[in-house]
């Protein structure tokens, strides 16, 4: 482990820029920390921290010089690797004759600074979806191959975070080029830095570093430990597929539907949700037609439309589909869970529906049924 002093942080950004990367990092935009171009360390939200709860997100300025003392905002890597809108093709001509033109794939070289462990896991999950099958998605794979990832281990956990219980954080353990732990103590401000790939190791060679002292390594470990211990929520994943597939007709779905607005915010903010639709647009002369792939959400009625009407008409069916897919069906489909515990769906739900709470209710319902099956005959004799 080596140490990068805070005053040398700009060198890291300059070296990334020198390697022809556009550097993307956390920036404050419209009251939230999102991802945008970073020219220097001065652009990072120093001293800012966030407070998150179901349906609530606020930022506060503190006296701390910390650059990364907050958790994830509404933006994620997803929109950079899997754009919310991408052109599939242009078709020139008409019904009598046409030519299909495939657009050039835009895959800019980008370095992401300050990527959290849950984000890296979410990306690895999308790798399975978009690049793991028989038909790898060319846009995703091209963009994915052109990125450099500088992770930051979380120094605090949000109230809606539950990565520790999902095994996806708060420490970055895989999928990064470089990983940082920010330490601010006794007037010193430095980053413990480590490489996860060959590209990361080459970058280390270019930076003004010194070996970390044992006390510094311990201070870094304490930062991560503190985040893990202050996690606001947790998810019990034990046997979670059965919890959902044995509860497809639970009364919970109707109960959640009375609160759910089917607004699709959770699916837009989720870093793993991948559904898309295709929009057809043609010129007014009808001599050129475009096909655009755009993000879609299973919360819209049209999502499941077949001739005769939507399959999932009720909002209870749509919520059941989303959470069952995310926490249970995903495993059979892609060999991983579909949730990384980032808590975005809780924070950005306008009515604060909580994925961890709904999963816990289902688990209790199932346990109660199992209890009844086991002891039922004896307990009902009172009637």
């Amino acid at each position, binding site marked *: 482990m080596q140490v990068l002093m805070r005053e040398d942080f700009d060198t890291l950004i300059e070296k990334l820029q020198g390697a022809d990367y556009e550097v993307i990092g956390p920036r404050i935009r419209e009251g939230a920390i999102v991802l945008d171009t970073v020219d220097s360390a001065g652009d990072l939200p120093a001293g800012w921290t966030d407070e998150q709860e179901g349906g609530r997100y606020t930022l506060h300025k503190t006296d701390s010089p910390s650059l990364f003392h907050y958790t994830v905002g509404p933006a994620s890597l997803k929109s950079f690797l899997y754009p919310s809108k991408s052109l599939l093709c242009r078709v020139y001509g008409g019904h009598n004759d046409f030519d299909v033109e495939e657009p050039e794939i835009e895959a800019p070289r980008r370095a992401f600074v300050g990527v959290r462990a849950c984000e890296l896991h979410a990306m690895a999950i999308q790798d399975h979806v978009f690049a793991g099958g028989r038909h790898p998605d*060319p846009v995703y794979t091209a963009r994915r191959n052109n990125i450099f990832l500088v992770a930051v281990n979380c120094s605090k956990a949000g109230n809606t975070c539950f990565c520790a219980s999902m095994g996806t954080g708060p420490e970055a353990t895989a999928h990064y080029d470089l990983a940082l732990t920010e330490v601010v103590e006794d007037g010193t401000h430095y980053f413990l830095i480590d490489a996860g790939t060959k590209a990361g190791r080459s970058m280390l060679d270019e930076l003004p570093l010194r070996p970390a002292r044992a006390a510094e390594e311990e201070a870094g470990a304490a930062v991560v430990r503190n985040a893990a211990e202050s996690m606001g929520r947790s998810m019990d994943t034990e046997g979670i597929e059965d919890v959902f597939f044995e509860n497809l007709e639970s009364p919970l779905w109707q109960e959640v539907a009375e609160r759910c607005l089917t607004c699709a915010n959770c699916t837009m903010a989720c870093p793993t949700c991948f559904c898309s639709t295709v929009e057809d647009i043609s010129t007014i002369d009808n001599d050129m037609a475009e096909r655009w792939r755009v993000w879609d959400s299973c919360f819209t009625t049209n999502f499941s439309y077949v001739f005769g009407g939507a399959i999932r008409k009720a909002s209870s069916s749509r919520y059941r589909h989303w959470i069952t897919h995310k926490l249970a*069906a995903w495993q059979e*489909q892609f060999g991983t869970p579909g949730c990384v515990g980032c808590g975005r769906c809780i924070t950005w739900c306008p009515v604060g529906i909580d994925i961890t709470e709904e999963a816990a209710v289902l688990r209790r319902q199932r346990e109660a049924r199992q209890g009844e099956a086991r002891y039922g005959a004896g307990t009902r004799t009172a009637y």
Partner: protein
Amino acid sequence: MAVAYHEPMLPLPHRVRRMTWETDDTFTMELVAAGGGGGGITSFAPGQFNMLYVFGVGEAAISMSGSPSNPDTLLHTTRAVGSVTKALANLHPGQLIGIRGPYGVSWPVDEAEGRDIVIITGGIGLAPLRPLIYTLIEQRERFGNITILFGARTPDEILFRDEIEQWRRRFDMDVLITVDRASRDWRGRLGVVTTLIPQSPFDPKNSIAYVCGPEVMMYFTLEALEKRGMPRERVFVSMERNMKCGLGFCGHCQLGPKFVCKDGPVFRWTEVASLLDIREI
């Protein structure tokens, strides 16, 4: 014309060679790769589908309805009910559409070897089964009794009428037709297709069933098959869901943990039995 796209979702131009109206709202479209030979669909298995693209309108997933032994005559049969299928219906021979495929899991033929076969279908559901029927007839000696049970709403809605009449004249298979309602000149059976199951000549202990139709029809068909003692693992169904990509990543066609586009559309009943009982799954 050898086209190599990077993007797996791009349509390959195909020309409409013939349009045949099967009923008032159902037609068969015969397609040939534009630019003649090469490119396009060179082979497919019974039960698979293509994504058909109409210029400026969009795509729809439609099963092949022709013979897999003759993939050069690429047939798709569909009802004109949605924006894409209505636009397809308005095309004329010589005009162009795009296709990509073939996609999906096919009806298992080898598993029928040495067994009686019962095909149960209603309405447009016969279209994705026709390639299977062609294959079974071509390899007739491999199988036991073959029975086709077909239901339509009215006699006018009987699909592939001439062909069904030919199949009925064969001595090596049984074809039973029923309609939900008819005028007095109909001399055949009346009632839903499930009423044909108890009297059909198949041995449930050594049979295989292929089922395709509206979901509610399949639900009651499966119930009737079970009542006759047909084991669930030898019943196959073809499911329909909204599809945008056909490749397993647009998410639209999910049926529980299954992607109908790549894990189906043909499923062994045991794979989806627990899901078919759930409303709006």
